[in-house]
């Protein structure tokens, strides 16, 4: 989209509040109309709720798609033959997976935006990367589940990639020691899912088997939450402290994002808040789906300027979040600061099922 080009020449956190809301109002209205015309499914939704695409609506009035509908429907604003790749959510159960259809332009924009955000975080040079996972051979290069997509996405910032786990999910100390020997003296990346980092770098790792025990040059990026090990969840402070004490890792950044919304990727700043870049933003809604008062916990709605191949520019997630006052944080750039408190518990326990 033409309006993205201007943004791409700027720092990823350059838009102040006033100019960002003006910009977002204009282009989210534009995207809503765009998808209304291109996607019949999306059109039935807007028609159903009597939404007029002719008005210039306020940001808070832009309709949102509940995230689980991506499991039920194939939302497409492009022709089928234009699909470049399909992203699948990493469902924890056998439930249907979300299917997100991306064309070439969207894929490219996604990479560009990730790069802009990443440059801000790490700098411009590519670094060696240790992945806290096992190597997954991609059989179908056109269809990715969320975890593979994330590893692939981040891997473009690496000049060397090493996988910590063997195919039985055990730590391969030989590979790890070799990697550290080569790279520990300069800045390097560690990337993994929060649960994998916890299991392997906090719980499993045997320090006595490490030749180099101080990983203070590591920059650890983790995300994806606790999902399968919710009952083992520990606080951010405890998590970071453990990694610090055990391995000397000081730079630890959590990220938050949805596979359903390209362009929405949020990294923690040093204060521990997620920051929205120029390309995306967050809105908190209460139990009646009205905008929450500032500082109140509520349902997370995410908006992004990127999705054009499918109507995913405004999504109501099932996560609980809270917007934090800007002046609490003096870290880089503009952009909404927020905290994520986790995912809503599925109500299946109250369901007509036997658990």
């Amino acid at each position, binding site marked *: 989209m033409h309006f993205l080009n201007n943004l791409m020449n700027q720092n990823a956190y350059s838009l102040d509040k006033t100019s960002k809301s003006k910009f977002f109002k204009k282009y989210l209205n534009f995207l809503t109309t765009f998808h209304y015309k291109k996607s019949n*499914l999306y059109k*039935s939704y807007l028609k159903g709720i009597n939404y007029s695409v002719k008005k210039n609506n306020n940001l808070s009035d832009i309709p949102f798609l509940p995230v689980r509908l991506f499991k039920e*429907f194939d939302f497409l604003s492009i022709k089928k033959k234009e699909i470049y790749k399909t992203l699948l959510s990493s469902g924890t159960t056998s439930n249907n997976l979300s299917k997100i259809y991306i064309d070439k332009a969207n894929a490219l924009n996604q990479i560009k935006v990730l790069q802009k955000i990443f440059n801000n975080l790490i700098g411009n040079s590519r670094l060696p990367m240790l992945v806290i996972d096992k190597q997954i051979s991609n059989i179908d290069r056109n269809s990715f589940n969320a975890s593979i997509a994330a590893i692939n996405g981040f891997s473009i910032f690496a000049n060397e990639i090493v996988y910590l786990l063997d195919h039985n999910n055990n730590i391969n100390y030989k590979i790890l020691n070799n990697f550290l020997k080569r790279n520990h003296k300069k800045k390097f990346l560690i990337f993994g899912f929060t649960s994998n980092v916890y299991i392997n770098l906090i719980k499993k790792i045997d320090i006595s088997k490490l030749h180099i025990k101080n990983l203070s040059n590591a920059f650890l990026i983790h995300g994806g939450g606790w999902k399968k090990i919710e009952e083992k969840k520990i606080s951010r402070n405890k998590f970071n402290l453990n990694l610090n004490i055990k391995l000397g890792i000081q730079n630890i950044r959590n990220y938050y994002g949805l596979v359903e919304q390209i362009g929405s990727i949020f990294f923690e700043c040093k204060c521990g808040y997620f920051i929205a870049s120029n390309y995306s933003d967050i809105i908190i809604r209460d139990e009646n*789906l009205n905008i929450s008062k500032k500082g109140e916990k509520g349902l997370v709605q995410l908006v992004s300027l990127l999705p054009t191949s499918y109507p995913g520019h405004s999504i109501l997630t099932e996560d609980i979040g809270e917007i934090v006052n800007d002046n609490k944080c003096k870290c880089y750039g503009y952009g909404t600061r927020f905290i994520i408190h986790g995912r*809503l518990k599925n109500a299946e326990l*109250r369901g*007509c*099922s*036997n658990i």
Partner: protein
Amino acid sequence: MKVDKNIEYLIGKKAKLDSFLEPFSPKIIKFLDDLSKLLDNKFNNKNFPDLKALSFFCRKNNILSLKNKHQNKDTIRFGLGLLFHITPSNIPTNFAYSLIFGLITGNSNIVKVPSKKFDEIEIICKSINYVLNKNKHFQIKNMIAVVRYYSHNQIFTKNFSAICDARLIWGGDKTITDIKKFETKAKNIDIPFADRYSISLINSDKFLKLSNHKVKNLIKNFYNDTYSVDQNACSSPHLVLWQGKFTTKAKNKFWLQLDNLVREKYDSPLISTIDNYSKLVSELIKNKNIHSYKSFSKSLYVITLKKIHPKFFIEKTKWGFFYECNIKNLKNINYVSNRSLQTLTYFGFSKKFIKTFFETNNFNGIDRVVPFGQALNINLIWDGYDLTKILSREVEIK
């Protein structure tokens, strides 16, 4: 004996349960009456209306009236032997009714309760244990085990399935499929309680003639049938059918009054906001039969359908998400009546009319037709099964 941490015995212990009695045995009636008194004395408070209902059910008079209704004095019957109950997590007292039906019919019982710890379950089990520890009930002690384990600990389900004479499988289609994988004795009987949905039928004109007080009562009954279990019981209405001349006026009045009551009384978790809105959007996208919809609040959505037709289909909903439709000719109930339709609650029709109507129309579904307010009243005939007959065997003597 080695204690297995993966299974908890809330009542009874790991032992052979093979006692059986005749249905409606005086021993069982006495035991249930003692239980009723204990529940009534100890927990006669407003926090647990469902315990009060349970206590009421266990009274001697109630069981005796059931006996009169269900027992044929000329036949000789005994319990099948050992029942294995897999009970659901949507209604905390369901396991107790399942157990009581097992006892009334003269069987020993292993009851698996949901892993979610409901207060009601703890209270009921404590009370049963208290009554069982009286000497006079020693025989019944050998007829009850209540167990709690996670369903993924399949070894228990496997073992219990292998020794029982019948399985009562609550919890819907998925549970039934899961449980049926475990082998049983050849003669075992499975009684599956599958996923069902329910509807209401209202005579608009009669409704509009009600006094304010009676309207309030009717709305309260509808509320109890639905919101008291998050509209998540198979017998909670999901679709309301309107008959009569003044349906529009009646609908407005009905939903507005319900909305008031819901705002006043109903509390639901945040996930219900997501569930209901997602359901609405999904319906708006795929359902071509929608005339209009109203969202009164996060806990009351009403989708007005254009018409009921031969291919009519709705999915079970919860948290106060309703469909409604006008019905001119009652025979068209046939279009919504498939095997998934369990209960029809009615208002504004006489029992006589309803009886004649159902006698003359062979509907494929509908196992229960009850007035508003009785949707959740569980009984020995449930889901179309006469449990007194199915759970006992008859000795033929000539």
